[in-house]
């Protein structure tokens, strides 16, 4: 129960976190093109929050072992992975269309941590990603790949759909489109 609460608080705060950052980030972008004074104002008002949260394995482990009726769609991707970038809009579409359901999308970036600020953050802003984005800073992937799913080779993209309360899970080591995602989600969510 305690764990569920923590996860709920965590996911909501992350959600709020990423949504909060969407508008200042956008404002920032406009400011860069137009008025540089405005940009400075923005920064001084509020420290520039990153649209992406750097996490350790424990964050993902909590999510995997939570006991919640929220269905999590955890997508492993990277900015340099072509097929991953291609399917990101489908996850965004899912995020919008299932906003009223207990569905949470977590896009877990496998980009190197040193690329976070110069590559991943601008990418998220450019793509206007609204889903929660994590960057998993755990280079020793051999220690955790099997814990996501034993069938996963480590190739990207990979997607885990999980509902811990109803003990349902589906894992895909391949590209997905909106139809296949929505179809798969049908086994988890009544809509």
């Amino acid at each position, binding site marked *: 129960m305690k764990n569920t609460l923590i996860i709920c608080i965590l996911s909501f705060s992350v959600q709020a976190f990423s949504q909060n950052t969407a508008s200042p980030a956008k404002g920032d972008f406009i400011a860069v093109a137009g008025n540089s004074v405005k940009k400075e104002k923005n920064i001084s008002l509020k420290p520039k929050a990153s649209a992406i949260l750097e996490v350790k394995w424990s964050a993902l482990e909590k999510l995997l072992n939570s006991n919640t009726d929220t269905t999590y769609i955890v997508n*492993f991707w*990277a900015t*340099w*992975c072509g*097929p991953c970038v291609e399917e990101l809009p489908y996850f965004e579409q899912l995020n919008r269309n299932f906003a009223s359901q207990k569905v949470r999308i977590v896009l877990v970036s*496998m980009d*190197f*941590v*040193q690329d976070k600020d110069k590559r991943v953050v601008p990418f998220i802003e450019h793509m206007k990603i609204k889903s929660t984005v994590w960057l998993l800073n755990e*280079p*020793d*992937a*051999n*220690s955790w*790949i*099997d814990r996501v*799913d034993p*069938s*996963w*080779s*480590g*190739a*990207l*993209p990979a997607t885990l*759909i999980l509902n811990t309360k*109803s*003990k*349902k*899970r*589906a*894992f*895909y*080591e*391949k590209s997905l489109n909106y139809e296949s995602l929505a179809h*798969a989600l049908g*086994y988890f969510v009544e809509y």
Partner: protein
Amino acid sequence: MKKYALILVGLLVGLGAVTTASGLLTQPALAADEYRIGDAVKNFRLKTLNGGMVSLSDFSDQKGVIIIFTCNHCPFSKAYEARIGALHRKFAAEGFPVVVVNPSDPKTHEDDKIEQLSFLARDKGYTYPYLVDDTQTVARAFGANRTPQAYVLKNTGGTFTVQYIGTLDDNPQDPANVTKRYVEDAVTNLLAGKPVVITTTKAIGCAIKWKDA
């Protein structure tokens, strides 16, 4: 009957069965044919960057070979480039050279065109054989699915057997913070006549984009 039992089990574990089925559908031939630890590797013959040909059997006078599937467009492969060179420098003289195989489809990845690779090889002074598997037959035979992926092969009287499959070490991002050197440990053990302790590892990598069959 067996089939129904399987379906039931599948239903019981929720979507587990669906996952497995879809996994099999994406790579039908690989699951059954891929090399596993202890398997003997069939000879292969591939083009080198300078127009020559290299076969696995050319290394019959060596103690073994470290085959590394890699490419030129993948950040993980790039991160390991220097370490691949270091492995070759360390072990080639001891009879365990590195052989790099690039299974990228140059139609998908401009960076993996042979001209581009040849330029890099000259520029960076690759000392190991760099083979082009543009038909992807060798990668398929091995069951490689991402880059970089290493296979340590032991040579016993001209027969090469798989002793290790996986990543080079436990930290692609930062060579200074590597704590487990899987390939190095495997080769060191083999050179000492000892069995390999960790025989398989997994790693995040760039999926090999297969040409349409």
